[in-house]
């Protein structure tokens, strides 16, 4: 038992609660009976309709389309620039904020129209190590391969 507990302790951690790493990396949301979808699972009530007890878990698709983006050239110390930040619309009817990977920032600025509606898919990777030495896993979206 002790060995198992230790194994769990050293495992990777998702950067946000709604990124689930198993069985394969995906985003987990909650959906209110009124249709509104939220990424924060511990919210008090639905901010669209006000109901508190009408939430059901919803597993989100790993594919979506880019709504809008920006290319960040100036950020806080330690954050590498430039990078592409985007709002990705998922088919379930919720939007997610994430980095776009495998998209050339320079090209995106030249031809923004090519980024709008771009089909993308979820990918994960190690973003950092926390104070206790765990890998912290973040997600991003890249142009869909299929």
């Amino acid at each position: 038992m002790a060995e198992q507990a230790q194994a769990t302790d050293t495992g990777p951690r998702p950067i946000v609660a709604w990124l689930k790493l198993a069985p394969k990396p995906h985003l987990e949301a909650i959906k209110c009976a009124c249709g509104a979808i939220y990424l924060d699972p511990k919210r008090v009530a639905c901010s669209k309709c006000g109901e508190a007890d009408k939430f059901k878990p919803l597993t989100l698709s790993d594919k979506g389309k880019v709504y809008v983006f920006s290319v960040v050239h100036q950020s806080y110390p330690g954050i590498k620039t430039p990078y592409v930040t985007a709002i990705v619309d998922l088919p379930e009817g919720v939007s997610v904020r994430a980095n776009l990977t495998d998209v050339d920032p320079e090209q995106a600025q030249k031809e923004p129209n090519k980024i709008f509606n771009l089909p993308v898919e979820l990918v994960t990777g190690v973003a950092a190590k926390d104070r206790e030495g765990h890998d912290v896993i973040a997600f991003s979206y890249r142009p869909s391969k299929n």
Partner: protein
Amino acid sequence: MRNVYVLGTGMIKFGRYPDKTVPQLGGAAAILALKDAGIAIKDVEMFACGNLQLSNAMVGQRILQQIGQTGIPVINVANACATGSTAFREAYMSVAAGMYDIAMAVGVEQMGKAGLLGGAGGGDPAYSTEGKLGSGTMPAVFGQAGIEHMRKYGTKLEHFAKISVKSHKHATKNQFSQYRNEVSLEDVMNARMVAFPNTLYMCCPTGDGAAAAILVSEDKLKQLAGGRKRAKVAASILTSDPWTDRDLILPDVSTLTRRASKQAYEKAGIGPKDIALTELHDCFATAELVHYENLGLCGDGEAGKFIDSGGGVHPGLGGHDPVNVSGGLLSKGHPLGATGVANICEVVWHLTQDDRAKERQVPNAKAGQAHVIGLGSACTIHILTV
């Protein structure tokens, strides 16, 4: 509700005051407003103070400790960038409701070179999502507001850049402006990119500043104005962000502005065509462009055409429907808590032909509006009339 008038205004030049404290900056603006009103601090019955970054530090009381501790009620207000205008509204409401006859509002901020704002995380830095799950910095958030317009209507980079050129040109005529240099379209387009499509000159600076206003009832106005022309607060509106599809992911600065704008025009009983000048929240050039439509200065999708046709430009420079003749946040500066009161001062000065707006006076101004967005979100619109 009773009619409320702006009896006095005061503002210090926006800029950098590393050798002054926040209460000193706010106190200086308050003294100017009291002098302009022709009253003393002992005459003020209620004081609302707007400051964001020291919102737990009793700034209002500390201002009175600089200029006169009269024991009056003081409210300290924080409402993101709408902090100053919300403080103004608190003062307005206290007079409108009949609670007090003379109220003071001060907006003050000392930011120094604060940087980007927004998006930074607390706790273990490994779990900060900034740069890992996109960006929550203000330039990126407002960049995307412009990109959304680009996506919907084919708006071009030049449209946003023209707004910065206009702002800088206007600011050359404003002695209160932090920056008073002209920039060309090429300067703006070729400047360092901060967050696409906002280049450096399309982002407002950080800085220090303060502005103040004295609000009075009609009876007090008759008693104290001495025949001087004074502006009436025709509408004082505050909204928060209603639920919209993407608001929690990408702050929606349009819906709450549209809601506030509709309420403001209704309350004042006028429409956008009656507005001689607009001071709006151009924290970024992209923000100004979307607010042309949100405030009804042009139709949906027409903001690009509006700026191309001289919309937003001072009539003295050949434009129409002037926006941010003060230089706006882009050039005049944006000391967070001061902005909302400073915008109202600007509108008041044009309506009352005050010398402080002499160099940039909008002719025949009978009505003007001041709009502020605080991300998170709060929107205020004040319509003033003479």
